[in-house]
């Protein structure tokens, strides 16, 4: 990378994340004097206020401009969603991991202005006040989490439309839609009008925001003594005048347009799983080719612009999270996950020259954000896969690898058209979506193992003695494994019902109180329908509940089936007693459960058959139920860092796991339970019907020796292709030895830049909590022999 990029990158890495009250102050000012407008129009006016008033930042040497806060790494807050208390701010400032500097002035502003205005009025307060006792009890006990309690529904990725249309074109579409409203026959014509007006205000506001950058760049150019930089600033000014008002005409404009849109989305609301450009290589390719053809762009210039664009993502740490949300997603990463490769809309191989350029950039930049993945189709060349694996081999966890062909099938199964499915991909950690056309909201993690624990206590949570679930029978009276399975399914259904009821209320709270007219502009068919993204305006609407701990749950069930029912090695009574004591004094029994159980991840049909039954149970409990936006509920299996939190609230389990230890993550086997080989793990994982999910996450850990040489890469490539032949959805690799990780625990100062794959994202090892560090060390390390 050149000097400019190296400097910007270092600056991004060195800057300590801090809280800025800029946004909180502006939004509070706005709402204090807000007029009597409809909710969508108010939201749009608030957005406009932010775009007109927030500080504009253009840093030395930057080519792509714009920041969410007043400068890089200054993270705004969203008091209308979650109003941090002074105590929250202290915690954010002082906590060891994922901290944010909060200065004295910020605390004063919060104490005097923000808290008095928003306390009791934030979405977080409203949501918690609307949930019933059963929901509260299950939430407190760690049966599930709730994504929307301090972040807005998001989880969507941009399609290709901004590369064809400018905001002025959108405004024309909106005006046409407004003109076509039929107040006589359409009972919600008024609502549509307000929503469309709101979108129009937002489209204008983002143009204003860009113009303010153009103005600043021009003023800076005038004062700039260095002729080269002066020229760049003039160019920046010209780019910002053109986009996003108009469709982009160059590579640079395309990137800058996207970046303004990105800032708009993450400033309007604090959406989950930050928006991202999706199939960036395909979107940029026409601009790249044209630039090269007419001689206005070189490959090196394109590389530099992409690198500057990458740094912009890294400048935006995920806004501060507190409480359970901080536990379930303890990271600065905000999950913008750029897709490369895959298929074109017509089904042809989607790999192009920009794809390789993007892979080079990922390799050189080594940044946590944006996250990156490759979409691997059987049609893609091996060269593409191997180029990606050479990056994977370096051991910092990127890019992850998705099965593009299966993603298309998953989306088609859900009812998307083939063309829409091919334009889709994976986002966040592993979640599938039809990019630019779908709202696929993740609503929270479900602790599958806790539900078994409650089942084993006939509805009581043994950690508190409280009744949380329903009575499904005393397990000591069960005469077969099937009895247990039936009881578990009832209990599962009960908790899923509670979660779904809560979600349905929360969805309506967002639809009615917190629409997102700017985001709605960007996602088809919100304009055509005149309906907000949060209210069902997108062409496709899915609501997800993410299952956690399937590997642990399988091993627990397998242990009970084998030792209690098949072999009578111990009675249910004895098992429960031993679990109640957290195995103290019963190490022999614990060893029996750990070592003499058929365990998932070893291509053992006994265990894997149980996994399939449990997968079906989960699928049946969730899939296909209607949500409030005209779509349905679906499942996916990923944990972020929630398997650590869920483990912490779950007692000792029949798989020999001690109380408080992490659960298995994603669809990976329990840490250390897979003792055979990577092929056995893959065969086990492939017995799950990935097509019925919206994403599964499989982690594998290799020692660096396994991947040495070209041969190591060849064989890893074959391993990946084999998994995908078996319809696997996603796989990712940690290439690091346990010895290195232990050394990093002992002397973190020496390993500050050590990055590892956590769940669906990478993070600095030293930024992870101790429990999570230990969990990663405990994962089976596949060696060569």
């Amino acid at each position, binding site marked *: 990378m050149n000097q400019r990029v190296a400097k910007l990158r270092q600056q991004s890495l060195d800057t300590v994340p801090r809280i800025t009250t800029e946004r909180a102050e502006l939004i509070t000012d706005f709402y204090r004097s807000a007029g009597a407008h409809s909710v969508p129009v108010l939201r749009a006016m608030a957005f406009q206020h932010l775009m007109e008033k927030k500080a504009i930042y253009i840093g030395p040497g930057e080519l792509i401009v714009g920041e969410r806060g007043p400068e890089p790494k200054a993270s705004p807050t969203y008091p209308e969603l979650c109003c941090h208390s002074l105590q929250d701010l202290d915690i954010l400032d002082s906590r060891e991991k994922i901290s944010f500097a909060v200065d004295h002035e910020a605390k004063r502003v919060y104490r005097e202005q923000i808290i008095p205005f928003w306390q009791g009025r934030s979405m977080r307060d409203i949501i918690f006040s609307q949930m019933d006792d059963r929901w509260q009890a299950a939430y407190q006990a760690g049966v599930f989490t709730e994504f929307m309690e301090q972040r807005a529904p998001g989880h969507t990725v941009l399609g290709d439309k901004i590369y064809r249309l400018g905001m002025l074109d959108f405004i024309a579409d909106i005006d046409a839609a407004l003109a076509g409203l039929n107040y006589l026959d359409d009972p919600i014509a008024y609502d549509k009008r307000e929503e469309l007006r709101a979108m129009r205000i937002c489209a204008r506001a983002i143009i204003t925001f860009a113009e303010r950058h153009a103005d600043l760049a021009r003023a800076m150019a005038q004062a700039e003594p260095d002729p080269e930089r002066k020229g760049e600033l003039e160019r920046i000014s010209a780019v910002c005048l053109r986009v996003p008002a108009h469709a982009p005409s160059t590579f640079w404009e395309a990137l800058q347009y996207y970046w303004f849109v990105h800032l708009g989305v993450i400033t309007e609301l604090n959406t989950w799983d930050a928006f991202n450009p999706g199939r960036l290589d395909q979107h940029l390719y026409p601009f790249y080719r044209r630039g090269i053809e007419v001689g206005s762009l070189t490959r090196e210039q394109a590389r530099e612009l992409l690198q500057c664009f990458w740094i912009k993502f890294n400048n935006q740490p995920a806004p501060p999270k507190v409480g359970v949300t901080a536990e379930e997603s303890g990271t600065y990463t905000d999950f913008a996950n750029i897709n490369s490769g895959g298929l074109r809309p017509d089904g042809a191989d989607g790999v192009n020259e920009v794809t390789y350029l993007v892979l080079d950039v990922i390799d050189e930049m080594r940044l946590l954000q944006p996250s990156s993945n490759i979409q691997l189709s059987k049609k893609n060349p091996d060269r593409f896969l191997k180029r990606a694996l050479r990056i994977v081999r370096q051991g910092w966890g990127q890019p992850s690898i998705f099965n593009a062909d299966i993603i298309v099938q998953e989306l088609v199964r859900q009812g998307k058209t083939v063309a829409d499915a091919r334009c889709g991909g994976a986002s966040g950690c592993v979640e599938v979506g039809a990019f630019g056309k779908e709202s696929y909201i993740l609503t929270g993690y479900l602790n599958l193992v806790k539900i078994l624990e409650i089942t084993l206590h006939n509805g009581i949570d043994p950690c508190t003695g409280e009744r949380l679930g329903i009575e499904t029978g005393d397990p000591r009276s069960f005469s077969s494994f099937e009895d247990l399975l039936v009881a578990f399914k009832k209990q599962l259904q009960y908790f899923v019902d509670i979660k779904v009821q809560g979600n349905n209320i929360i969805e309506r709270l967002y639809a009615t109180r917190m629409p997102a007219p700017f985001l709605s502009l960007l996602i088809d068919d919100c304009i055509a329908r005149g309906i907000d993204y949060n209210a069902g305006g997108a062409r496709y609407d899915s609501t997800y509940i993410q299952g956690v701990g399937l590997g642990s749950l399988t091993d627990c069930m397998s242990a009970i089936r084998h030792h209690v029912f098949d072999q009578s090695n111990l009675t249910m009574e004895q098992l429960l007693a031993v679990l109640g004591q957290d195995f103290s004094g019963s*190490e*022999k*029994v614990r*060893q*029996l459960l750990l*070592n*003499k159980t058929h365990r998932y991840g070893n*291509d053992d049909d006994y265990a894997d058959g149980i996994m399939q039954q449990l997968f079906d149970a989960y699928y049946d409990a969730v899939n296909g139920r209607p949500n409030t936006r005209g779509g349905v509920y679906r499942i996916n299996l990923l944990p972020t860092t929630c398997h650590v939190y869920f483990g912490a609230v779950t007692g000792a389990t029949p798989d020999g796991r001690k109380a408080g230890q992490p659960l298995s993550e994603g669809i990976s086997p329990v840490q250390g339970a897979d003792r*055979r*080989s*990577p*092929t*056995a793990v893959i*065969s086990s994982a492939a017995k799950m019907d990935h097509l019925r999910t919206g994403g599964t996450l499989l982690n594998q850990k290799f020692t660096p020796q*396994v991947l040495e040489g070209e*041969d*190591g890469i*060849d*064989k890893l490539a*074959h*391993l990946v*292709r*084999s998994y995908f*032949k*078996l319809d696997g959805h996603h796989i990712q690799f940690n290439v690091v030895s346990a010895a290195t990780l232990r050394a990093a625990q002992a002397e973190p100062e020496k390993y500050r830049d050590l990055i590892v794959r956590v769940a669906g994202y990478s993070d600095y090892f030293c930024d992870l909590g101790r429990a999570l560090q230990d969990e990663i060390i405990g994962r089976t390390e*596949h060696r*060569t*022999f």
Partner: protein
Amino acid sequence: MSGGTVFDIMKYSVHDGPGIRTTVFLKGCPLSCHWCHNPESQLPGPRVMFYPERCIGCGVCAGVCPNGVLLPLAGAGENHPAAGLDKCTGCGRCAAVCHAGAREMAGREMTAAEVVREIERDVVFYDQSGGGVTFSGGEPLMQPDFLMALLAGCRDREIHTAVDTCGFAPRDQLLEISKLTDLFLYDLKMMNDRRHRQLGQTYTLPDLRPPDNEKIKTIADRLYSTGVRLLTY
């Protein structure tokens, strides 16, 4: 189908021939090279293995051993496997009761059908990578009938096979096996006979003479002329 003693079956073996392979280690070896990385595989019958880091010192194993050779193992440390194991008959009772997995049997009696079923589990990986199965040891030719049955079973299923041999076996047997094998990994331990004798030290089966490298080379040439692929290393 016949049966035999299998020391171990390793999946995702990446250094034993082309592609992703499963390596089946058959027990028994006529040599006892000092560099051998799995000396447990040299003896013909099942043997018990001890993993001290897994042992919780419960002492249950000592209670079931019919030969009374085992002492409770707490704190026995790395050196334990040598202690008292000379009386071990490999009956496997201790391994069956050790919950911690600290005692495991190296070597299992398996039928050829069982082994082939295990090999077949990774067929998708072989197909994708041009891999297959490698029979190694020990010296796989120490169990010629078993090996033939395994090779025949693999050929039936279109699974690529390799035999990793030191060539220390009767020539006719080698030729017979070559008909069922796609690839020989011919392990020429040392091209210098005297040096080989020095390093090889003792031989498990006294009636067999140490390998004669001239002979091995002759056999190799013969095999090559039959069209079998050979890799030497």
